[in-house]
């Protein structure tokens, strides 16, 4: 009889565990997987109810989709490289160059990450826009009616805004990674005759690789899917996949095409994320935990 009671108790425990596994899965399925499946279904059936590749071929073969895809990848890659360069430089200064107000800077980075992306775009229009601070000053100084600085409304304006917004996402993991780097390694390298550039290249950079990889991947994911900055800046002729989805769905009511493009965008994001995980497991080592 005691065996039967124990078996019953085990069965009850398993049921309890099963409930706590199923609950989050059910929530996830309701708020994420179901809507996603609707989008994929719409992309594959084009509202006809039957799976057909005609709609897919039409959208994927269109010049505007190819252009948007290339724009998306180009802007995301360049912005990510910019974030990596700026983030690495700032993290080096923050971690290895003592300066007053260091703690305040750390807090500001955290606050910056929490801000909505369009705020930077708005700030940029005040600074670099046609009627912004720089153009007004230059126009007054040069006596011209044409704003001399007009990069903001090109893909470079978008890239600059994205670099500004997303650099802290590289900066944060890098600072965490540098805090784990044994300062004695740098001192010993220096005592052995290595100058600062060699120390950065051969000691600090290898230690920062997992954090760079993590931060860079995150930036790539975020910039591939960036919408607010592009919409706010309104760069002429700069169409990316998220903007194209918006255009097709909201302005043209072409939901089938919008769903095809959105599915490609999701696929692109998943591929980037998989690449990130694979790279991290291969290069992460003991520092992978901090990123």
């Amino acid at each position, binding site marked *: 009889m005691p065996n039967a009671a124990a078996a019953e108790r085990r069965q009850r425990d398993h049921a309890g565990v099963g409930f706590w596994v199923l609950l989050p899965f059910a929530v996830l399925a309701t708020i994420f997987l179901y809507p996603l499946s609707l989008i994929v279904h719409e992309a594959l059936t084009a509202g006809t109810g039957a799976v057909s590749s005609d709609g897919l071929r039409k959208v994927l073969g269109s010049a505007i989709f190819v252009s948007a895809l290339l724009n998306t990848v180009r802007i995301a890659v360049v912005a990510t490289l910019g974030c990596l360069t700026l983030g690495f430089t700032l993290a080096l200064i923050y971690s290895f160059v003592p300066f007053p107000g260091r703690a305040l800077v750390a807090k500001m980075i955290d606050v910056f990450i929490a801000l909505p992306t369009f705020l930077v775009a708005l700030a940029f229009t005040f600074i670099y826009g046609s009627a912004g601070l720089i153009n007004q000053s230059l126009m007054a100084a040069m006596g011209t009616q044409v704003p001399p600085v007009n990069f903001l409304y090109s893909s470079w304006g978008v890239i600059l805004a994205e670099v500004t917004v997303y650099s802290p996402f590289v900066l944060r993991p890098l600072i965490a990674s540098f805090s784990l780097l*044994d300062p004695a*390694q740098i*001192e010993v390298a*220096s*005592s*052995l005759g290595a100058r600062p550039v060699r120390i950065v290249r051969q000691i600090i950079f290898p230690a920062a690789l997992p954090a760079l990889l993590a931060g860079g991947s995150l930036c790539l994911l975020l910039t591939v899917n960036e919408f607010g900055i592009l919409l706010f800046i309104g760069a002429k002729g700069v169409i990316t996949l998220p903007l194209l989805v918006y255009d097709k769905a909201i302005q043209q009511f072409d939901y089938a095409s919008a769903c095809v493009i959105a599915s490609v965008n999701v696929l692109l994001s998943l591929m980037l994320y998989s690449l990130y995980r694979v790279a991290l497991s291969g290069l992460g080592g003991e520092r992978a935990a901090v990123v």
Partner: protein
Amino acid sequence: MSIATVMDRTATAAPSTAHVASEGQGNRIAFDRVTVAYRNTVVLDNFSLIIEPGEFAALLGPSGSGKTTALRSVAGFVRPVSGSVSIGDEDVTTMPPYARGIGMVVQNYALFPHMTVAENVAFGLRARGAARVLIEERIRECLAMVDMSQYAKRYPRQLSGGQQQRVAIARALAIRPRVLLLDEPLSALDAQIRRNMVEELGRLHRELPNLTVLYVTHDQAEALTLADRIAIMRDGRLSAFGEARSLYHQPPNRFTAEFLGHANVIPVRTEALDGPSGGMRVRFGAANLLTTAANNIPAGANTHLCVRPHSLKLEPAPDRLNMIEGAVEELHWQGHTQSIALSVNGSTIRVVSTELRQLPKIGEKLTVYFAAEDAVLIAEDGNA
């Protein structure tokens, strides 16, 4: 390759930079009134010391005594607010660390984790632009020197603590440093490996007689075993400096006596010079004692008598000149030795004896004896 061969080549191989142990002559390290302060806290105070070429000198002291700061000022990682540091004939006070030509080994090894053992050893040579042939040769020599040749292709994470420290030493020696700085290099190792590494360091010093070594430690056993001379530091100042044996047997001040070997420091009053021995008669409570080392302390002074715990014997000395009676306060069995604390005239005197067949009881009266030549008069806290 034999060690002797390695050493012959060490003395004659082509240097990779100008900073090579100058043609086998070694380099002097000189601190001249060096003061280092962090904000308003002085951590090294008017510190002067000269370590001769080829000497193995230990900086010994408790935590916060300034010994690591002194070493770091030689390495160039702290900038003195006043005074100067020289290596050889060169004032290096403001020279950046990479230009000083020093080898450095630290407590936690600081091996570069993404480089193999061979790459770690080659790092300094590559940084100095040494030729590939020379780098290969030095890697072989230096790894052979620390008996790590078979681990050249391994990564630091694949090595034990002791092996990592050997690699760190090989890496420091590969550049043929002007001086070798060792900052508590054995602190992270367990007791058995530490003993082995002390022997290894002793062997390296014998095999590299021209290399000047500055060794920072808080472990007096390491300092006594390895160092030709020991500098005792306290509160950022030099408390004593001298040959290890001399400092141990004739400490110049109370701090040195207590820190180096935990000597008994007994308050005494000097009575009169002792003609036959040339020593001094002193009084400790009711006991009349004799020491042969008066250290120029005159008669009629209140001072201290230093006696090592193991110099106090439970068996009477033949002359029975120096005997102290006290009550047993504490007993500690330490395996092959027995530590006994006696209360005498309000002072505690520690005795270390070989294991006793019959242990005294707490409170029991016990008489201990010591030879006049095992006792030294010391000033209260004068500097060396």
